[in-house]
C-alpha cells in the first residue's frame, strides 16, 4: 500500500479499486472476451459497420469519377482528405504516448488504459492511411511514392514532405503494431489457458507463441518492451512533426511557420487524449470497469488534455503575435482573413472548442464527473478538426495573388468519406474489445498489492 498512501492523503482516487487479487483481475478481464457476446455489442457493431459503407461507396465513386467530386479546386487544392488525414493521425498519438512515454515516466496509472489506447492508435492510423491514398489524382499509381528500382530509372523526390510522410506514417503504423502485439503476448497466453473452446485455444495459442512466463522470458521481454517504448517515444514526436512539415515546408502564409512542429505534436496529444476519453468513459460504463479505469485515470487524462490544450492555445497566440511582429504583410493579411474573412466562423468556433472549452477542467466539479469530461473531450474532437480546416483551407483560399483567391466547401462526397472512416474506426474498435483483452491483464497484476509485496527494484513497479 506504500504507493497509495500519499495519494490517499491527497485525496486522489486509487489506480485500482482495493480488494483485487491476480486471480480476480485475470478472471474479470478475460471474462469480457470469453463469455457470450452481449446483445448491445451486435447493435453497436452493426451501426458502425453500416457507417463504414459510406466509405466504400464514396471511394468507389471517387475512383470512378476522379477527385473532382470533392470540393477541391484551384487555389484550394487540398480539402477534407488532408484535413481528415491530419486529424486521424493526431488522434493516434495519444495511444503511443500513454503506452510509451508514460511508461518511461513510470506513470503506473497508464496500466489500465494503455492497451485500448494503443488499439485506438492503430485504428486511427488505419483511417488516416486511407486519405493520402485516395486523395491522389491517379491513386492507382500511389506505389510510385515508394523507392523501388523501376524500368524508368526514377526515384522519389526525397526532399518532398509527402515522401517524409510515407516513411513516417508507415513506420509509425508498423512500430505501433509491433509494440501492441508484444504487449499482448502474455495476455494471449492467459486467454489460451482460460478459454474452453478448442479453436479459441488454438488461435490464442498461436498468438501467444508458446509464452510460459519463464523468468528468463520475462527478463528479455521487459528489456524489449522498454526499448520499444524508448524507440516509440521519439517516433511519435517525429511523426506529427513530419505531418506539420507538409505545411511548414510549404510557403503559403499560414503554413510557413516554425512553430508548427511543437504545436502540431501538442495538438496531436491534445486530440488523442480527447479521443481516449471519448472512448474510455462509455467503455468503462459498458463493461463495468470502474474498478480498473477509475476516476484517477479520468482525471489524469483530463489534466493532460488541459495541459496540452494550453500549449496549443499558446501556439495560436504565437501565430497571432508573429503575424504582426514579423511585419510580413502576407502573414498579417492571413491572420486578419482568418478573423474576419469568409471562414471567420470556423476560426472562432475553433477557439471556442480548443481554447475555451478545456478550461472547464480547472473545476474539480467537472474533473470528477466522467460525463462532463466526456463532453469537453467531444468539444476538443470537433475543435481539432476545425483547426486543420482553418490551416488547410483558409490559408490556401487567399494567399499571395488576390486575382487567384477562391473559396472551398466540402461536397456530400467529402462528408461521406469522412463519416465513413469514423465507421471504419468504430467497427475495428468494437471487434477489438470483443476479441482481445482491452486492459493489459499481466500489467494489472503487477500493480496489485500482492505483487508489490515481493521485494523488487522500484522501476519494475510499473513495467
Amino acid at each position, binding site marked *: 500500500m506504500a504507493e497509495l498512501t500519499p495519494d490517499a492523503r491527497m485525496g486522489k482516487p486509487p489506480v485500482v479499486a482495493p480488494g483485487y487479487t491476480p486471480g480476480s483481475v485475470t478472471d474479470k478481464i478475460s471474462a469480457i472476451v470469453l463469455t457470450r457476446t452481449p446483445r448491445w455489442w451486435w447493435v453497436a457493431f452493426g451501426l458502425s459497420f453500416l457507417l463504414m459503407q459510406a466509405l466504400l461507396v464514396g471511394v468507389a465513386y471517387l475512383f470512378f469519377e476522379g477527385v473532382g467530386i470533392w470540393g477541391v479546386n484551384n487555389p484550394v487544392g487540398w480539402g477534407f482528405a488532408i484535413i481528415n488525414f491530419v486529424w486521424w493521425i493526431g488522434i493516434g498519438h495519444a495511444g503511443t504516448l500513454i503506452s510509451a512515454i508514460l511508461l518511461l515516466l513510470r506513470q503506473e496509472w497508464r496500466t489500465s488504459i494503455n492497451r485500448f489506447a494503443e488499439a485506438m492508435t492503430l485504428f486511427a492510423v488505419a483511417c488516416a492511411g486511407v486519405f493520402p491514398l485516395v486523395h491522389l489524382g491517379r491513386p492507382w499509381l500511389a506505389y510510385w511514392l515508394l523507392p*523501388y*528500382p*523501376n*524500368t*524508368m*530509372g*526514377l526515384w522519389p523526390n526525397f526532399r518532398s514532405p509527402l515522401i517524409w510522410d510515407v516513411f513516417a506514417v508507415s513506420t509509425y503504423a508498423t512500430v505501433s503494431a509491433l509494440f501492441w502485439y508484444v504487449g499482448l503476448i502474455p495476455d494471449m497466453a492467459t486467454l*489460451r*489457458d482460460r478459454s474452453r473452446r*478448442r479453436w479459441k*485455444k*488454438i488461435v490464442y*495459442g*498461436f498468438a501467444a*507463441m*508458446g509464452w510460459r512466463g519463464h523468468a528468463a522470458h520475462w527478463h528479455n521481454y521487459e528489456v524489449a518492451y522498454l526499448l520499444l517504448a524508448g524507440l516509440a517515444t521519439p517516433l511519435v514526436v517525429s511523426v506529427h512533426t513530419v505531418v506539420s512539415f507538409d505545411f511548414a515546408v510549404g510557403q503559403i502564409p499560414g503554413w510557413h511557420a516554425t512553430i508548427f512542429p511543437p504545436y502540431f505534436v501538442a495538438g496531436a496529444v491534445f486530440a488523442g487524449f480527447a479521443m481516449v476519453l471519448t472512448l474510455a468513459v462509455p467503455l468503462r460504463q459498458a463493461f463495468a470497469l470502474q474498478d480498473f479505469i477509475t476516476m484517477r485515470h479520468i482525471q489524469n487524462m483530463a489534466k493532460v488534455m488541459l495541459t496540452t490544450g494550453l500549449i496549443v492555445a499558446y501556439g495560436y497566440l504565437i501565430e497571432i503575435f508573429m503575424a504582426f511582429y514579423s511585419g510580413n504583410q502576407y502573414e498579417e493579411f492571413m491572420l486578419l482573413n482568418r478573423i474576419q474573412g469568409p471562414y471567420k466562423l470556423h476560426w472562432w468556433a475553433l477557439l471556442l472548442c480548443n481554447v475555451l472549452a478545456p478550461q472547464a477542467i480547472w473545476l474539480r466539479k467537472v474533473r470528477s464527473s466522467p460525463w462532463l469530461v466526456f463532453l469537453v473531450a467531444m468539444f476538443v474532437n470537433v475543435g481539432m478538426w476545425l483547426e486543420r480546416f482553418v490551416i488547410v483551407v483558409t490559408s490556401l483560399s487567399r494567399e499571395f495573388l488576390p486575382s487567384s483567391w477562391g473559396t472551398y466547401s466540402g461536397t456530400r462526397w467529402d462528408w461521406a468519406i469522412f463519416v465513413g472512416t469514423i465507421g471504419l474506426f468504430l467497427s475495428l474498435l468494437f471487434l477489438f474489445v470483443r476479441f482481445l483483452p482491452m486492459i493489459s491483464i499481466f500489467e494489472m497484476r503487477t500493480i496489485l498489492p500482492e505483487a508489490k509485496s515481493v521485494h523488487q527494484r522500484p522501476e519494475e513497479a510499473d513495467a
Partner: protein
Amino acid sequence: MAQIFHRSTNTVAKVTLFGAVFFVAVAGWVAATLDRSAYSTRQGVVREQPVPFSHDHHVVALGIDCRYCHTAVETEAFAGIPPTTTCINCHKLIWNESDMLAPVRASLAEDTPIRWTRVHDLPDFVYFDHSIHVAKGVGCATCHGRVDQMPLVYQAASLQMEWCLECHRHPERYVGPREQVFNMAWKAPDQATLGPALVAEYHVDPRTDCSTCHR
C-alpha cells in the same frame, strides 16, 4: 492443461516467421523481372503483318537502302512508312502475280491503305525524333537491331526508359561514324577510343531532362 499443439509446430512456427522475409523478397524479384520481361515489353516478339514483308530479303539479297522506304528518317521525327506505290514501283514488274503480295495490289486497286502492325511503338507521351539521332551518328542497328537479318521484324530493344537513358548517359558507348549509320553490319573496331572522339566531333550532348522526350 493438455497440450494444444504437436511438437512439430515449434519448427513450423519458427520456419514460417523466418520464411516471411524471403517470401517478400521473392515477390519483389518476380514483379521486377515480369516488368522487364518480353511479356510486357514485347521485346523479340514477331508481330503479325498483313503482308509478310522480309527486311532480310530486301536489304541483304536485294541490297535496298533503308532510306528507299523510310524516306524521312534523316530529316523528320518520324522515319516514315512507305506508301503502297513504293512497293508497287518494283512489284508491278516482279512477283506481280504472287499471292503473298495480293494485299498490296488490292491496296492500290481499291485505294485503301495497308494496315501494318506497329512494331516499335512508344507511348503517346514520348516524343522521339529520328533525324537528330541519325545526325549524331546513332546507327539504325543500335536501336532496331539487325533488321537486315529479320525475315519478319520484331522489336530488338526493350524500349523502356532505362534503356533510353543508358545511351543518353553514355553516348560514347554507342555512337558511330555518320557514314556508317545505315550500315547494319558495322561494328566499331575500338568503340572505347572511337566513341569519345565522335562524341566530341559531332557535339553529341544527349539531354536527360524530362522535357527532352516528354511534353
